[in-house]
């Protein structure tokens, strides 16, 4: 009884703060917790007429279908491999840019930083326009250049083999400036004494970069890389859908889990299949986030999420 009294007393004492946060609490419950019912969806044969509750059960049929389809290997491979390439090349280019910025006086940095950062503000839709002007099969800048030099034009939007390179390039275009700024800020926090001492010892700029700057950034690099590995199962939908113009001829290299789920929902109307692929993504994604957080905790406990 006294426990109940204490609970009520606690509740009263914290009532005002609870009330302040209550709209957000309710909101998160509706939009983040209620959708967890969806974990049941892959086990149902969902149809719009019967809705969630009255649609018949399907057992593991949906999973069997997904595993036996060609799609599962394709979308898993594309999601993981492309994200891995983005992580590797994105990190390297961002680091190079940050180290170059660090070589310059402050007054120049602002300008470069702004120019490199602008793609960050652009939506993938506008990016799709820009890259279509380059890659358009009839009027695109690149094909006209190829023709000019007497080469055969390339049907960019129907030849999947080029897209891993194109997508890596575009993802660097959009994200490297942002990465560079994070690493540059990391370098700014470095102790200038290291650099002065090494200068007295006659170290060159390149040696300073290699022996001081990079080791200083190592913790930041490892944290950011590990965190992005935790998200490797989630494709950037806008990049893979808008920039490729959702061209079905490119699916062998550009179809990722996210685009597959979207298409199953909107084009095919196959809710069960979409939900099954989504379930697969949620579960594996969850395991990867937990694993990456576990590693972050080992590396640097301050940076772990929990």
């Amino acid at each position, binding site marked *: 009884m006294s426990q109940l009294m204490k609970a009520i007393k606690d509740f009263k004492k914290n009532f005002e703060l609870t009330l302040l*946060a209550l709209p957000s609490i309710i909101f998160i419950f509706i939009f983040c917790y209620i*959708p967890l019912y*969806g974990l049941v969806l892959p086990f149902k044969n969902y149809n719009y007429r019967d809705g969630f509750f009255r649609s018949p059960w399907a057992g593991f049929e949906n999973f069997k279908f997904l595993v036996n389809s060609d799609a599962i290997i394709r979308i898993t491979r594309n999601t993981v491999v492309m994200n891995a390439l983005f992580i590797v090349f994105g990190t390297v280019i961002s680091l190079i840019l940050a180290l170059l910025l660090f070589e310059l006086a402050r007054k120049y940095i602002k300008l470069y930083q702004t120019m490199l950062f602008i*793609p960050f503000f652009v*939506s993938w839709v506008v990016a799709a326009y*820009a890259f279509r002007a380059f890659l358009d099969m009839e009027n695109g800048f690149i*094909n006209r250049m190829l023709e000019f030099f007497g080469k055969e034009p390339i049907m960019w939007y129907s030849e999947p083999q080029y897209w891993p390179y194109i997508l890596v390039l575009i993802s660097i275009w959009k994200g490297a400036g942002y990465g560079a700024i994070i690493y540059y800020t990391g370098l700014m926090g470095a102790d200038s004494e290291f650099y002065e001492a090494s200068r007295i010892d006659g170290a060159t700029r390149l040696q300073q970069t290699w022996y001081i700057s990079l080791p200083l950034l190592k913790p930041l690099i490892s944290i950011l890389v590990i965190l992005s590995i935790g998200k490797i199962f989630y494709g950037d939908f*806008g990049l893979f859908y808008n920039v490729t113009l959702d061209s079905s001829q490119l699916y062998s290299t550009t179809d990722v889990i996210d685009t597959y789920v979207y298409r199953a929902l909107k084009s095919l109307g196959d809710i069960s299949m979409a*939900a099954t692929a*989504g379930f697969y993504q949620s579960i594996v994604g969850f395991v990867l986030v937990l694993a990456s957080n576990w590693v972050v905790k080992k590396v640097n406990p301050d940076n772990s999420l929990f």
Partner: protein
Amino acid sequence: MKANNLIPHIVLLSIAIACLLPFLLIISSSLMYEKDIILQGYTFIPKKITLLAYEVILKDPQQLINSYIVTIIVTIVGTIVGLWLTATIAYVLTRNDYKYKNKLTFYVFFTMLFNGGLIPSYILISRWLNMKDTIFALIVPYLVIAWYVLLMKGFFQSLPKGLVESAKIDGASEFKIFVQIVLPISKPALATVGLFLVLQYWNDWWLSMLFIDKESLFSLQFLLIRVMRNLEFLNTEMARQYLNIDRLNIPTLSARMAMSVLAAGPMLFIFPFFQKYFVKGLTLGSIKG
């Protein structure tokens, strides 16, 4: 400038310019005559420059204006409501004397680790809440995002604790303390998270793709998707009738580019002015998920 700084300058300048080339190509293509595009392709240096594509679109800009209004309403309402919801819960999470602090923190951050995926949210919003083809579908899903709560929480944690305590001793209510003391000294935090919300709402096409079929609710970005797909809304038919242009010169390819300039251009000029806040938010947020 030291001589050995030349290499970084050259490399950075060329990369920075390369970053801007896609924008230049859109702009120059939007200024081309249709027959020059057929002849030259999209190019950085058009033979002749014309504003015809813009004239044609602005002849009947109703859909464009309408999409601007939709996007502006969504951005303003979403940012204000989102900021309030984010700030309140983030603030409560920083109060060490709040009994349920740990439980509530877990409640918020669990959503970053695990989610039900697209389909259940889609069914919830379109079927259960009946928000399909309403403006709410464009606002509601982004109102509370755990990453922003985390970011805001980081800011609030750096506020001096004594302020709140002394106000409490004076007998002020929690609501009053939050509104009259905490919020006014947290303007940089509100600006940072607010700008992220503005960027998110302004650039969004995802929610429109999922939930919107009605033309009156097309956001700017979604309008651009539609124009990209099938050249609708470009007034090309009208151009033929009223502007008396022969068939070969009706701007469609250039009008498509002009549409993207008109729809995306203005904000692209504004965002870089607030770069400082974005950088601050990103550097704070990057190492935390």
